[in-house]
């Protein structure tokens, strides 16, 4: 029994004419303590997949098992870093983190909670901005608050939806190391959604591409056999790194090409055979 298991997941949005199947036949299993990255194009259904795992939405078909139990609703065991920060704008940086910590550790005293808040705000180097509201922060700073908020709850599993996308290279590197540090030290399990292959290779044990939607499915996995702790500067000279990186990028480019030719066909097809006409025709035959 894997730690997290997705079995034959399908997810459809809308009904009737607007119905669209975003995810099709998704199978994924993650072991405890593993660090898995999923890479994919924008709009392929990565956020949908993440929300299925954290319990914000339910699959149309299939099941999500967390430690053997079907996921129903959210849980403090699974921490989430949202793609769009999702900070509460009327609270300061400190209050945003405090609110989360207080929910996660209801038994701790106010002073203990405040210490945790201070630690995690310091970790994302936002101590000088602790009393500022999200409006006064840059996009990158807001994303760091979101990271601090999720990690401060000390979840068993960290689910990250493109958490570092809006950051400058330097902060990005620092936060990657912080996340790796926490994951390694406290034996967490991590799922990282990213559109940066290098980030995936630097951080994860396995990289799985999500093929572009609609009907997105997971592609073949790529194992990253590079010893930890990994060193960013040395990584570029590592033969294994280069090989894996090229393989993944080639795969992504191939499905990117496929998608282009697919979309051309899709545009032509409905022109040739109007839906209603075909349906009427069918009924007559029947």
């Amino acid at each position, binding site marked *: 029994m894997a730690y997290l298991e997705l079995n034959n997941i399908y997810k459809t949005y809308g009904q009737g004419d607007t119905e669209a199947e975003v995810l099709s036949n998704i199978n994924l299993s993650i072991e405890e303590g593993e660090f898995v990255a999923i890479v994919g194009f924008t709009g392929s259904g990565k956020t949908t997949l993440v929300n299925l795992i954290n319990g914000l939405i339910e699959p149309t078909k299939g099941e999500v098992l967390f430690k053997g139990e079907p996921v129903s609703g959210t*849980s403090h065991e699974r921490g989430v870093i*949202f793609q769009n920060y999702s900070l*509460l*704008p*009327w609270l300061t940086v400190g209050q945003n983190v405090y609110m989360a910590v207080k*929910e996660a550790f209801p038994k701790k005293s106010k002073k203990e909670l405040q210490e945790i808040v201070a630690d995690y705000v310091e970790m994302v180097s936002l101590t000088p901005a602790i009393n500022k509201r999200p409006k006064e922060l840059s996009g990158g700073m807001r994303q760091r608050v979101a990271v601090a908020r999720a990690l401060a709850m000390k979840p068993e599993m960290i689910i990250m939806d493109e958490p570092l996308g809006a950051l400058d290279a330097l902060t990005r590197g620092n936060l990657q190391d912080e996340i790796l540090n926490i994951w390694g030290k406290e034996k967490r399990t991590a799922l990282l959604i990213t559109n940066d292959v290098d980030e995936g290779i630097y951080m994860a044990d396995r990289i799985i591409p999500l093929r572009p939607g609609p009907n997105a499915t997971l592609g073949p996995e790529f194992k990253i056999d590079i010893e930890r702790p990994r060193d960013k500067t040395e990584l570029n000279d590592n033969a294994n790194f280069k090989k894996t990186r090229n393989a993944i990028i080639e795969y992504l480019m191939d499905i990117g090409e496929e998608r282009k030719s697919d979309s051309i066909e899709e545009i032509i097809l409905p022109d040739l055979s109007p839906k209603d006409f075909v349906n009427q025709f069918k009924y007559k035959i029947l």
Partner: protein
Amino acid sequence: MKQSLTLGKVTKFIGLGFLSTIKDLFTGNIDKEDFKTLLRKTIVPLASILLFIGLWHMGAKALYNKEADFKIEKALTDQGQAAADAMEACIASGDVSCKPNTLPSPSQVWDSYKSLLRDHNIIAADKAAFKEKTAALNEKRVADGLDEITYTGRPSFVDQIFRSLKTVFAGFLLALLIAVPLGIFIGLSPTLKSAFNWFIQIFKPVSPVVWYLLVFMIVKTLLIDSNEDSSFTISFISVGLCSMWATLVNTAMGVSSVDKDYINVAKVLKLGSFQKIFKVVLPSSLPLIFTGLKITLSVAWMVLIAIELLAQSPGLGLFVWEEFQNGANDSNAKIIVAMFVIGIIGFLLDRLMLTIQNWVSFDKTDAI
């Protein structure tokens, strides 16, 4: 330096930012940009006020002449030259019996304003004297378990203003106490929303007069065995019911349209429903609730005048009505004074709400 900074902040905060520019003008530290702002924010409004008064003056004069000419003409055709001359002399003397009763000029209005103030000072002095005179007697009456003797003289103009403010605040408070909680419930529950929707749609456009009559019917019966004057109760309830709709609709809308991201945060943090409402839903709908309250207060102030008039409840509305009925020499001028007072108080109430809104809201936009 620090003090002037906070002064600037405060005045800007309550929407009177131009005051600090005027101060800069006097202290001499002003540059070209500031001067342009000064021109736009103070000189231009002042000039337009002067222009307005000028046009008003000329308009009033034209109306006066038209009515005077008509009266003289009428005397001439009806009764001949002698009557026409007498009428002309009478009008020139300013006698009440023949004075054209039309739009008063700015200077007449200003005179009326001063006479209203004088009147207020006299009444206030009278009241103070009465209080002093009856103090000993009242003490005794209270000791004997009797009611105090109260001043029952005519209220002054300023007293009427305070009565009106009292009515409007009572009405506003009633609207707030009904509309905000109800709006929250409606916003949270789609079932309640469809239950209340017809109700809101039908009652929202009902006119103040009809609200007054409805409240009158109900309150009159409820208070049938009390000999208290119910006009205040009736008017503040009518004001509240008339004005609460904007707050009700805005609160419901704010609560039901909370950003999905915030709801997701509440779910991921696993907030209880109480926490979710007070920590996420309400703060996020506060700007809309306040927009509603602001509209409610201005509607309350606007309908108040009509309702006081109908309810015969003391206040500016009744003042205006009595002056209109009265038809004294300066009645029209007093009505215009009341109009300006009503307008200025309405503006100040709006500013007050804006200040409170800026103060409690996270969304510090300069709403007007």
